[in-house]
């Protein structure tokens, strides 16, 4: 076994230049991912989950720049590759599944020609071979009568079916890494499980890695091996999925876990939430980003940004306090 992880992101910082200042959308994200593993990235809206994945694809808007850090993919630093070299990586070695299947397919082409376009962009195949291959991938993602459906247009499919087609496009070139940006958010609950199950099965067959960006902690539990919790552009906790659920160390992670509704909850008790809103990303950096919403906030939190610490093997947390100290504060009645 190769010891080197497939993807190693180290202290990634992606900033956006805007008229009113620099938006630190991603401001220190660190994680690594082995082949065949699934990483979940969770966090609330606007915390930099999607920017992290766009950074890995190098598909940032014009005013966005990776200002620091490295993204090592099989040892190559993606940050340093030219756009031309990226063309060979996108869709071929790293591909992406999008949030909204209703808009992620070009409406003027049949799905067959769209899948074949991806195949032809990266592999030398004759038209007939590409066609056969497209049918094969469509069958893999469970589209019935794949042969006939090649000639269908996107609007003739339901949302779940379209997401399958997009997955087919994503796996067409056997990528080593698939980034799925909230792949089930726009789907019916009944279809969500199907799509997730499909992704899991395909992953087992091809041994590819998945980065799953999601709001849904239930999905993370079902799909992922490791989890990265992001808050306001930073990694706040990164650990094995079991550790996160059994032994979370960061107050934000606790808040997230607590706000997950359960079927067994008493319907008369209001749903738990984390009070307040995330900070303006133009103002972050000088303090712990979570301090204004954290009930354990101390003087140090307002003045110093916490470093990532490895509290046990494979479990990283960015908080000034250890779990024991936090529990002690909780016992004494929160903020003192």
């Amino acid at each position, binding site marked *: 076994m190769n010891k080197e992880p497939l993807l190693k992101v180290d202290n990634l910082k992606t900033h956006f230049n805007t008229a009113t200042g620099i938006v630190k959308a991603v401001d220190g994200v660190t994680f690594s991912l082995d082949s065949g593993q699934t990483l979940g990235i969770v966090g609330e809206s606007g915390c930099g989950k999607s920017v992290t994945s766009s950074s890995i694809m190098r598909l940032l808007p014009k005013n966005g720049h990776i200002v620091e850090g490295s993204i090592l993919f099989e040892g190559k630093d993606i940050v340093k590759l030219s756009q031309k070299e990226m063309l060979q990586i996108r869709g071929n070695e790293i591909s992406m599944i999008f949030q909204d299947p209703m808009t*992620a397919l070009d409406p003027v082409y049949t799905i067959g020609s769209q899948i074949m376009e*991806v195949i032809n962009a990266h592999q030398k195949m004759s038209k007939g071979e590409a066609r056969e291959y497209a049918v094969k991938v469509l069958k893999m993602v469970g589209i019935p009568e794949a042969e006939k459906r090649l000639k269908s247009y996107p609007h003739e499919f339901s949302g779940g079916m379209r997401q399958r087609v997009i997955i087919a496009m994503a796996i067409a070139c056997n990528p080593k890494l698939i980034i799925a940006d909230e792949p089930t958010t726009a789907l019916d609950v009944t279809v969500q499980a199907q799509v997730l199950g499909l992704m899991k099965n395909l992953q087992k067959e091809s041994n590819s890695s998945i980065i799953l960006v999601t709001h849904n902690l239930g999905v993370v539990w079902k799909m992922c091996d490791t989890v990265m919790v992001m808050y306001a552009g930073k990694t706040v906790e990164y650990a094995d999925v079991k550790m996160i659920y059994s032994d979370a160390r960061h107050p934000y992670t606790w808040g997230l876990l607590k706000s997950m509704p359960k079927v067994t909850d008493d319907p008369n008790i209001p749903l738990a939430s984390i009070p307040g809103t995330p900070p303006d990303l133009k103002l972050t950096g000088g303090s712990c980003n979570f301090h204004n919403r954290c009930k354990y906030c101390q003087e140090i939190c307002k003045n110093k940004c916490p470093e990532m610490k490895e509290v046990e093997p494979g479990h990283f947390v960015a908080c000034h306090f250890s779990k024991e100290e936090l529990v002690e504060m909780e016992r004494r009645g929160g903020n003192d």
Partner: protein
Amino acid sequence: MENKEVKRDLSEASQQEMLLKERKANSAWRKLRRNKSAMFGLILVVFVTLFSLVGPFIYRVDPAAMDFLKVNAKPGTPGLPLGADNLGRDLLARLIHGGRVSLIVAVGGMAVGAVIGILAGLISGYAGGKVDIIIMRVMDGMSAFPFTLLALMLMTALGAGIENVILSIGIASVPGYARMARGQVLVVKNEEYIKAVKAFGASNSRILFKHLLPNIVSSLIVYATLNVAGAILTEASLSFLGMGITPPDVSWGAILKDGQDVIRSASHIATYSGLAILITVLGFNLLGDGIRDVLDPKMKK
């Protein structure tokens, strides 16, 4: 209508059949067929096209042959179905040949304008930034002149001749296409499927011509159809002002100008050439509106 009752079951085969039927019924051509005014426009356009393209082979009269005994002859004079003009030339033959030139100039001008304008608009909208600013400022500068005036100035610079009329009408209509294309690109380039195509490794030129262009082409077709009508009028205006088609070539605008001098004594010259222009412009306008109804679902009632 073909409302053959379909077998009612939910098998895969009949669903497939339904899908095909629906696709056929909703095809652009079928929708156009259902639109009465568009079909009327199409008939006019086809009629005018046949009139001027096939006409010369059926009505074999030299449009330049003068007969001074028949100057300003009224319609219905033996051998002259629509009469003769101020130099005694057969008016029907002149309308047929003039239609050829008018249509070629209009369609050619549209094509020149569309190709340059759409290309400029695509690049401008997709590249953004400085490229966008430079291209669009040039277009703004061009559209600061009234359309006909710009075409007139270009004609003065280029000199007479059919090619130059095509070129000047084409160049004068570039800004319209560029604006249209740019505006549409700005909308479409932020669609998720363009991001998806990028994420699957498509190059810039591929995105531009294979994904952006086909997605904006429907509104451009509408604009181009309406633009043909405008180009016919511009050509007529240029020729009417003496800056367009020059003898021995004829065009409807040139005939109209010939008729202007004798409009009191021989009104049929100006009437018939004006009518030809009217029918053609009306045809293209109705057709253009119809195509818009068909291709732009947002305009649907």
